[in-house]
């Protein structure tokens, strides 16, 4: 399977080649190389997604296959992994494919977008692409961290791209400091686990922790604390409350093509990190604590969904609005994951695909508005979007899609989430999903009505709003900008009609969560255990129609009654998101402390 390493090596080689030839090649070459690499990676990952259905594909770097070492005192029946493996499964491969596709969209949208010379932007984009693929496909705990860092480093620099303004530096700093704190927690957790198991391969770690279970039936403080540190570290990237503060600052200042990568795939990768480490390493060891862990994660998910929706509702800056809606939807994705069942994971996987397409499209819409109207603040731009009929139409559809209106793929994810909740008799939690979808969709639709139609009164405070630096010269909307904008929204519909997608997602989730089978296959090199496959629940269009209807109602009401937009009652929440990085880190430490404390010491 020579294409497995190429998903990482090709973009890295492309980045290095561009940097070698950077000063003598025109910028178009940089764009072309980046586009080619992203398209190739997308193709490779889609192929791997199909090829790995039913049994993981394992690739041992350096040819270091696991071997038998008689006197190591390890679990005797298992082989010892001494090299680094990629373990490709459909969920990881699909996420990598989504990331590659969004990189394609970002390059296309940026084609006529940046007027600066130099290829560093494309070099960083390719490093981000390689990191995304590596992070999704790796089966090694430390390798996971390496690609996490590569992804972070490229993202920090891309976030601060607009060096002429003060804002980007501040936003990128907040992003870098909080996420580096998260990375420190992850590394500490990995060190603890390595000290306990003497292994870094995830299957090996899982097997070793499971073997320890025979000696000590409940997981000790070490295992619990290590999981808490790793999960919270990834939760910083996933923007789970109270680790979410950096996200809106970073999105508000990053160039639009970078926003779609951040919202469409990077925060989801944080969630993937939690899921991957849980199911591959900790699932057996934490079985006695599963109920408690589920409650903790569900609590964080509900808080994230609601606070994100509320904050999105309070924004008039389009990019900040969309950023907070990403936080809210991350809450919904975490809710599926938090159930710790295959159905929940499948629902989240579907939701990630739909959300990635829709949110990417909405951000590109904000980018076109910035391109044409030289600003993204709805209060200032009130009614000035009237000439942009088509941009507005796609934006409105995006708002409805965000609210979960069928036939957009977000509706499929939402349906499956409700089935997964019902399975555990938690159906009432679907109301949280309804509120989050309706409020975030309503906030987008409200902006649409005010910006593109001029409904409602202009905001009195509009005059003092700071003017945003335009990213390009004004003029017609180039086709390379509009094509990915509309294309991503169409993808959001196409995913619904993709034959067998819900079934595929459920089977992939079953494969992902059957950790025993995974270990057997990896360390004993035997075929996977056959398992009965479930069927996904039926589509229930009324849910999506209800939440889209609610979103429309909220939008209309808040356009009519401006006090609903929360200029007054929303102040305490604005103050909470202060932009002060010291505040963010304090909340972060409190979050990790409370999570670890509850996991360790809450009496049963």
């Amino acid at each position, binding site marked *: 399977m*020579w294409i497995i*390493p190429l998903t990482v*090596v090709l973009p*890295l*080689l492309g*980045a*290095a*080649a561009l*940097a*070698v030839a*950077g000063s003598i090649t025109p910028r178009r070459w940089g764009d072309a190389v980046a586009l080619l690499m992203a398209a190739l990676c997308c193709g490779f990952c889609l192929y791997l997604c199909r090829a790995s259905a039913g049994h993981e594909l394992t*690739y041992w*770097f*350096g*040819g270091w296959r696991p071997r038998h070492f008689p006197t*190591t*005192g390890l679990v005797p029946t298992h082989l*010892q992994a*001494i*090299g*680094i493996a990629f373990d490709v499964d459909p969920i990881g491969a699909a996420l990598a494919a989504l990331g590659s596709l969004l990189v394609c969209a970002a390059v296309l949208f940026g084609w006529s977008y940046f007027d600066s010379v*130099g290829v*560093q*932007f494309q*070099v960083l984009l390719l*490093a981000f692409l390689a990191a995304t693929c590596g992070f999704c496909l790796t089966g090694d705990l430390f*390798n996971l961290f*390496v*690609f996490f*860092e*590569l992804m972070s*480093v*490229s993202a920090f*620099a891309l976030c601060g*791209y607009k*060096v*002429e303004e003060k804002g980007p530096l501040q936003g990128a700093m907040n992003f870098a400091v909080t996420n580096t704190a998260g990375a420190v927690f992850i590394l500490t957790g990995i060190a*603890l686990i390595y*000290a*306990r198991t*003497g*292994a870094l391969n995830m299957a090996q770690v899982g097997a070793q922790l499971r073997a320890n279970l025979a000696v000590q039936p409940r997981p*000790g*403080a*070490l295992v*619990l604390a290590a999981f*808490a540190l790793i999960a919270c570290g990834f939760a910083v990237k996933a923007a789970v409350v109270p680790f979410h503060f950096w996200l809106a600052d970073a999105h508000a200042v990053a160039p639009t093509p970078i926003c779609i990568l951040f919202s469409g795939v990077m925060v989801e990768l944080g969630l993937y990190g939690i899921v991957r480490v849980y199911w591959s390493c900790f699932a057996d060891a934490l079985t006695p604590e599963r109920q408690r862990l589920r409650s903790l994660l569900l609590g964080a998910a509900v808080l994230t969904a609601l606070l994100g929706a509320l904050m999105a509702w309070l924004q008039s800056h389009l990019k900040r609005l969309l950023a907070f809606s990403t936080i809210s939807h991350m809450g919904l994705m975490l809710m599926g994951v938090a159930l710790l069942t295959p159905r929940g994971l499948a629902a989240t996987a579907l939701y990630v695909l739909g959300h990635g397409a829709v949110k990417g499209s909405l951000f590109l819409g904000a980018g076109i508005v910035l391109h044409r109207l030289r600003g993204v603040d709805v209060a200032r731009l009130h009614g000035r979007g009237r000439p942009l009929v088509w941009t507005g139409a796609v934006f409105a559809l995006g708002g409805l899609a965000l609210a979960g209106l069928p036939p957009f793929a977000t509706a499929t994810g939402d349906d499956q989430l409700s089935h997964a909740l019902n399975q555990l008799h938690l159906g009432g939690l679907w109301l949280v999903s309804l509120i989050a979808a309706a409020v975030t969709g309503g906030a987008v639709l409200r902006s649409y009505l005010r910006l593109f139609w001029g409904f409602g009164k202009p905001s009195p405070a509009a005059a003092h709003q700071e003017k945003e630096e335009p990213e390009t010269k004004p003029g017609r909307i180039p086709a390379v900008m509009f094509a990915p904008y509309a294309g991503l929204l169409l993808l959001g519909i196409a995913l619904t009609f993709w034959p067998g997608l819900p079934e595929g997602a459920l089977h992939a989730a079953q494969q992902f969560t059957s950790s025993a089978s995974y270990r057997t296959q990896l360390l004993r090199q035997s075929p996977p255990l056959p398992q009965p496959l479930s069927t996904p629940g039926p589509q229930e269009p009324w849910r999506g129609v209800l939440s889209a209807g609610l979103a429309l109602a909220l939008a209309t009401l808040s356009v009519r009654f401006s006090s609903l937009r929360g200029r007054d009652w929303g102040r305490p929440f604005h103050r909470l998101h202060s932009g*002060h990085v010291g*505040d963010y880190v*304090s*909340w972060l*430490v*409190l979050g*990790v*402390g*409370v999570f*670890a*404390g509850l*996991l*360790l010491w809450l009496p049963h």
Partner: protein
Amino acid sequence: MNARARLLVFALGALLLGGAYMAALSQLAPLGRGASAYADILNRVCVRERHITDVVTAVNFDYRGFDTLGEEFIMFTAVMGAVLLLRRGKDEVQAPQEDELTSRRGRRRSDAVALAGVVFTAVLLLFGSYVITHGQLTPGGGFQGGVIASTALWLVYLSGSYKVMRQVGPKPLVEAAEALGAAGYALVGLIGLFQGAAFLQNTLPPGSIGSPFSGGTVPLIDIAVGLEVSGGFVLLLLTFMEEVLEIRLH
């Protein structure tokens, strides 16, 4: 939040986190015991299998070489990011001022300092190359040697001037060296792939234990990493100094 509230939130979190961390540490194996099985195995088989006498290098560039490829590119990406963020903005001009370039803040360096600089530049380059090329035998290798070699150019600035440093290490050349080093690692990895083995598989002859030409692909990777790291550090220095000395607002 004001400073006091922030401190309170942080202290509460730190207390809980610290408690959990201490509870975790208390369950570690006692000092000196409970060595990792992974480390034991590698210590046992490394020299015999790979003809590499520095086990750390063998882990970094052979057994877990793919991690190190990622780490090398983290450094490459960080330098590229710094170059991107420190680039000349639309409202800035590159306007070198002659006195800043040839002397440091108006002070002339003495001939003795210049002579010492020339001597030690050569020594540093030689020592850096030695550390880079002997990674498979003794502690060291591309990362460490690359940092040492890069300080040679810093010394040129200290004992000479910014202008001399730019002449000795022109920016396009340094950029190309850094990127070539990064690409080199990945290209060495492709050797295995083209021979029908795995990516980064050490398929070159291992040589005899203790010889400078032992370890198969490992010395090649060391050289690539050395090039990347020294290029990266020099590029960082050049970029920062350019920002300070040459780039001005309109």
